[in-house]
């Protein structure tokens, strides 16, 4: 090995932003500082927008079922309408993001559990029509029996729609996404619950919005906790969630979550406070998704997030092997 004095291919791991680092910057080798991974080709705002809207839709369908079961027709109708609107926009965003949009139907050519995108496509093609029928029946009053069945189907499939997007991101080589694979599912469903509850608080009058308020508070609380756990466990890669634009969005999301949670808890029964709380929680959920998306993008673009953790893994394994082979 040529040692530390290498003139070419070494660079010091730099960083953007002013937050405190948990781990010191590492020296690492690279090819002219070029990324190891390809840049994420999924577009802004289509894909992070879909992460938000899909979550909003999926959790809204659960809220709608809950509202219907407890006789809150206004909340049920609003949540169903929001769900179908959000999932419709989602479908448009997803098709538009394809390199060859006219071939979107090839998504249903096979079913592959090894591909979260394949699983998601099938989930969406079950969920979308169910959400549509549920909303149409609620808005027109026609076919109430079929409407109830569709409401139930959408409520069962909705959490899958809200949660699978975590596997979609995590099942990549992108360090900030893959390394967070144990937390992203919980982060995404809690963020979805916060958004759907927030929408109910925002749009539905206070005498019916009780379930929305409960769901929003549970979601926002869980979101805050899971985010902290994720950052704590991620180690070096956590930096991507704390710096640059991703860091700003994640920070803003946290402030909005706390503000929305507090407002909903203290004044959620008053119309004005509920509206504010709902808007804050929806914005927080959207910021979280954009933040996660950008954090992943940043780790694909900088070779240090690929090289340094892999080098550390090699070193750990070597140390473990040395320990195992040495006499106890």
């Amino acid at each position: 090995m040529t040692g530390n004095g290498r003139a070419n291919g070494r660079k010091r791991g730099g960083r953007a932003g002013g937050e405190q680092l948990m781990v010191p910057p590492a020296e690492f080798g690279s090819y002219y500082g070029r990324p190891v991974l390809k840049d994420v080709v999924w577009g802004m705002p289509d894909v992070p927008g879909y992460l938000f809207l899909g979550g909003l839709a999926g959790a809204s369908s659960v809220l709608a079922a809950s509202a219907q079961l407890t006789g809150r027709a206004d909340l049920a109708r609003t949540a169903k309408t929001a769900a179908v609107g959000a999932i419709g926009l989602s479908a448009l965003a997803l098709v538009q993001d394809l390199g060859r949009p006219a071939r979107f139907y090839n998504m249903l050519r096979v079913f592959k559990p090894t591909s979260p995108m394949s699983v998601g496509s099938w989930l969406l093609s079950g969920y979308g029509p169910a959400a549509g029928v549920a909303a149409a029946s609620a808005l027109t009053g026609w076919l109430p029996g079929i409407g109830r069945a569709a409401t139930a189907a959408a409520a069962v499939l909705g959490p899958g729609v809200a949660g699978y997007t975590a596997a979609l991101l995590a099942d990549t080589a992108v360090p900030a996404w893959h390394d967070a694979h144990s937390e992203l599912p919980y982060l995404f469903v809690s963020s979805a619950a916060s958004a759907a509850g927030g929408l109910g608080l925002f749009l539905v009058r206070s005498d019916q919005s009780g379930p929305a308020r409960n769901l929003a508070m549970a979601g926002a609380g869980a979101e805050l906790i899971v985010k902290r756990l994720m950052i704590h466990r991620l180690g070096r890669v956590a930096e991507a969630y704390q710096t640059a634009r991703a860091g700003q969005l994640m920070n803003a999301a946290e402030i909005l979550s706390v503000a929305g949670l507090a407002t909903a808890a203290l004044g959620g029964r008053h119309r004005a406070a509920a509206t504010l709380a709902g808007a804050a929680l929806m914005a927080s959920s959207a910021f979280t998704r954009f933040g996660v998306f950008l954090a992943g993008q940043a780790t694909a673009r900088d070779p240090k997030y690929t090289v340094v953790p892999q080098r550390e893994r090699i070193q750990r394994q070597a140390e473990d092997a040395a320990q195992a082979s040495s006499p106890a």
Partner: protein
Amino acid sequence: MNTHVGAPFATGPADAAGGLDPAGRSGYADHPPRMGFFTDTSVCIGCKACEVACKEWNSVPEDGIELSGMSYDNTVSLSASTWRHVAFIEQVVPPDAVPALGDDLAEPPAPRWLMASDVCKHCTEAGCLDVCPTGAIMRSEFGTVVIQDDVCNGCGYCVSACPFGVIGRRETDGGAHKCTLCYDRIVDGLTPACAKACPTESIQFGQLDELRERAEERVQELHNAGVAEARLYGENPADGVGGTGAFFLLLDEPEIYGLPPDPVVTTRDLPRMWRHVATAAVALLAAGLLSGLGRQP
């Protein structure tokens, strides 16, 4: 051919032994031996004949005529329209690494020039193939990984699933493209274009098990000649991608060539991801339904 879209969850270190036969695992009952590349970078002269031959044979469009400032490498990286990429690394060997030759030889050592032709690794456990939602990416009977352009809808999932940064999406046609290991040539018993054009046999094509033996011998030979830094990359079936179908002999750490030092296919963790998604989804369903309980207004 379209049924060979991968073996669900047949991945993981426990499968390393079967990992040598990805074609068999993908459902080919009777198939030719696994074919691959051994790229011996110690004899690469940086002529880029492989890049040119690949473009010519596969009709790969040009992808920018710009000067990068990166030594003689103006190709920069593998991409949708670059399926062979020759890396050029100029190194000044530090004085303490130079063998003592006596004080009268005070001249600075000549820079070391590393050249290496990179290509799709045709992984035993291929992340791109696992995540492809359309079945466009498939395992060939030779154990190679091939994108069917007439099926690909350009979703871009494979691009982010590749731990080596090999696959790109082409701006002009929206599809994902990469090395096919010249499927159309090897199916007729021909050598892939890059290996055929290589004047120094830096790129060797053949049956993977034979190439691995040859590579081991070559590393020994180099070690005996005092080139202690020679090492193989991708040849080990116990590595994070089950070993690669295209592997390399390198003269420095992989990351110096732009290669990840310890890549692990993302789908090894997918069963755990699905369990977390299922738990999270059930929690959301429960929380949503419970939210309606409590005081009626």
